[in-house]
């Protein structure tokens, strides 16, 4: 259901990695060293169903990810998964929201064109009539110091 990335979409030089996603699905990704700065004053918003399948994205999400809205809706949220992100971060995310709590963390996301962008993400469960019906994530601009700290931390966790 989630396709490999295509080298044709990548801007400039790139490396290759194979991610093993939830349910043992593998995905070949191509990524470059190009960072896209987080746009000032904006929030990047998405919602998923209970399984992390994207159901809603806002315009900033579309602009930053490099995908069209139609390419995102119905896809697992791991479509943005960058190989530099340690899987423990996402395990912590899921454990936290399954427990009806709020998760916050710094995330490096992979764009369709192979470039990346850092966000500070907050994920919460959407509770309706006492039941979790989905999840919402809202990202804001992270500070450079926090990004640098996260780079150090995550590289020690992915080695």
């Amino acid at each position, binding site marked *: 259901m989630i396709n490999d990335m295509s080298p044709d979409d990548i801007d400039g030089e790139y490396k290759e990695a194979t991610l093993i996603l939830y349910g043992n699905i593998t995905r070949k990704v191509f990524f470059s060293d190009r960072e896209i700065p*987080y746009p000032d*004053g904006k929030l990047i*918003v998405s919602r998923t169903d209970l399984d992390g399948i994207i159901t809603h994205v806002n315009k900033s999400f579309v602009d930053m990810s490099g995908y069209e809205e139609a390419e995102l809706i119905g896809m697992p949220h791991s479509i943005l998964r960058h190989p530099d992100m340690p899987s423990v971060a996402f395990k912590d995310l899921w454990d936290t929201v399954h427990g009806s709590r709020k998760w916050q963390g710094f995330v490096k996301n992979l764009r369709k064109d192979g470039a990346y962008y850092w966000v500070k993400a907050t*994920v*919460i469960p959407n509770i309706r009539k006492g039941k979790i019906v989905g999840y*919402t*994530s809202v990202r804001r601009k992270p*500070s450079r110091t926090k990004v640098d700290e996260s780079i150090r931390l995550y590289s020690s966790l992915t080695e």
Partner: protein
Amino acid sequence: MPNIFTVSPDFTPSHLSGWYIFNTWLQRATNEPIRLTLYDNFFNQRQAIEEDVIDLIYANPYDAAMLVRDKNFQPLVKPEGGHDEAILVVNVDSQVQDVADLKTYSIVAVTDDPDVTMMGMIMLEAGDLDNNNVRFLPCMNYVLVAKQLIQGNANVGIFLAEAFDDMSNFVKKQLRVLVRGQIGIIHHSLMMGSKLQEKHDQIQRILLDMNNNDKGRKVLESLGFEQWLVVDDEEMEFMIDLMDTLVTGD
């Protein structure tokens, strides 16, 4: 007992008479006794909500969660084009070109508008500033925020975009926009309490129909927008979820 209607204390002062006109209009249109009661500040208004005094409210998004989840309020409508956005502003001569240039313990001039301050603080977070390492300079209104910046008493100010944009050129020339928020999802809404519950759909229809006659259009004009748009329960829940991700503390 009339229904008590109140308006979020951050309303633009020039719309004060508009809210009284709207109250009179709504009373006639719905055939319900409605009395507009205004509060000086958010604290007093929240206390009235807490004591179940309020039946109808033009609410700040910051209070929406409490109104819906603790007090069983239901959304009715929002003004067209009426998103709340915040801007960070500095003195025109300030050395600060980016939020990252602001130092810890910077002085931040703010009003008591809860949603605007929250959105402004989110923009400051990109410069490692937060509630624990800034000094707030509380101001009664945005004119005073501007004044504190111009006089050099604050390093940065948080404005409601609309309030900043409406300032005179003379004032704006002495200031510089550092970051302009473009969130586009957070808005005030007209909401009603459980006492009026049975009339929800009827009142909502009346409001949505307002721009279809001369009298209604005039009333809307005095409030500064052209029409009401529907806010259903799920849109309100979505906004509350969003606010939830933005409030600091945990």
